[in-house]
């Protein structure tokens, strides 16, 4: 990411807002503190992502949050060339990554892979979370671990 570029993708994309059900309030509060959390069942300790109202393993409704390291594996990534949103007109190409988190039961998260959009990182490369503060919410981005 160049020094003058404030965010990986230009402004104009929608800003995350916690769901009305309250299901992911803690997640978005944690990213604001630059912490990464994943939904975890208080009963059986299974992790799941995205958040759900019930644990898929033991059917407990008692769900909490597990703080994770922010270190993961680059499970898949693609270079996007087609502006699918007006805000992306000048932003292509950009990289969307799917990252697996070994310390949270291998749940996966989606973000952008920071750095040169023409990079070709190997699959399963180690990556780490980078918090990108926007005025109303903090996004979780990823970079190849150095």
């Amino acid at each position, binding site marked *: 990411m160049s020094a003058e570029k404030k965010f990986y993708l230009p402004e104009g994309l929608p800003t995350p807002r916690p*769901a*009305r059900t309250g299901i992911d309030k803690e997640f978005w509060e944690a990213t604001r503190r630059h912490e990464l959390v994943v939904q975890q069942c208080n009963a059986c300790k299974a992790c799941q992502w995205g958040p759900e109202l019930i644990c898929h393993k033991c059917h407990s409704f008692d769900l909490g949050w597990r703080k994770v390291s922010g270190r993961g594996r680059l499970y898949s990534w693609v270079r996007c060339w087609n502006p699918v949103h007006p805000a992306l007109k000048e932003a292509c190409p950009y990289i969307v990554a799917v990252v697996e988190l070994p310390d949270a039961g291998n749940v996966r998260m989606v973000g952008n892979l920071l750095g040169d959009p023409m990079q070709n990182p190997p699959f399963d490369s180690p990556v780490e979370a980078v918090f990108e503060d926007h005025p109303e919410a903090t996004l979780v981005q990823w970079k190849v671990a150095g």
Partner: protein
Amino acid sequence: MNEYTVNDRVAIIGVGETTYYKRGQAPVPEFRLACEAIIKAADDAGIDVRDIDGISGYADDRNEASRLATALGLKHLGFAGMVWGGGGGGGSGAVGNAAAAVAAGYSKYCVVFRALAQGQFGRFGQAPVTNHVSGTAAYTAPYGLYVPAQWVALRTRRFMHQYGINQEPLAAVAMADYYHAQFNPRAVMYGRPLTREQYDKSRWIVEPFHLYDCCMENDGSAALILTTADRAKDARKKPAYIMAAAQGSNYRHNATVENSSDYASSNFKTLGPRLFEMAGIEPKDVDCAQIYEHFSGAVMISLVEHGFCKPEEIMEFVTFENITAPKGKLPINTSGGNIAECYMHGLELVTEAVRQVRGDSTCQVPDAKIALVASGPMVSPVSDLIVHSK
């Protein structure tokens, strides 16, 4: 006949479609397109459209069954059903629902249809513009992950990585679709052949998908009529008997934010084997296959999960020569499919399977008796259909 209650008890006796248009080019509203296709299918079947008493749809079709029944003056409506979920995953499933309704006696003549007019309504390949996003989309949209091309590409790339697959099988699918469309006057890309050079030079949409690896966006409508095997004897044309039609999904396939338990899957792993068991045949018995190609890369994974080849065999199996009619080992998408005939959310793949087994395809596979349709890889549910002629 076997224990599976639909096998050979129900037949598709008529198919119809409107002119297929490029996106936004239909000169009439979507609802009229639906009416036209249904009337044509009834005519093809040799029945009075007013004798239709069942309506089966998918992909949250906007043209409601009750409005259609009213507008077309159907004498009564015995069955109205919809397959959950958007996209083309419900195409064969809607045939399955219709077949079940016919086998159970809820409907004597059941129509399956799909209608699209993207000029009148929104586009599939573009994101809606909003200031805020919450729920599942909050974890993807702010990162520019919006449309099926992108998440299908993510899964396809993981699969290609796991099995050492290059661009060739993807190119073969796109080239085969365009090749077949050159024989099909209904195809939007009829008269517009594709060269390998054009394919290679075409712009990336999202790697590994070039422009020509992606389905079109179209306006139009397609429909088909199902009835019992007994009534099918009076049909105007050769019936296509249903051997199996079913929906399916892998364990937690639809886990959100790219968390499918089996990520690089077309979501046919549990349905594929079940389908063949219902039909009482094996993959080698299939004469031609219509494999949903929203994006070319999903086709090879669908072929694997239906048992047509192993992942390690893809590079030898999915070649232009092997997948084109009339001589290929397994001709696929013989009308041009979603990429070159029309993106009618895969219902054009079902009408083509019917034409193949009754022998009037524009790209006929010699002596084709059994045709398979795989609808909607990677979405949930997906669905499958096998038809045959006697």
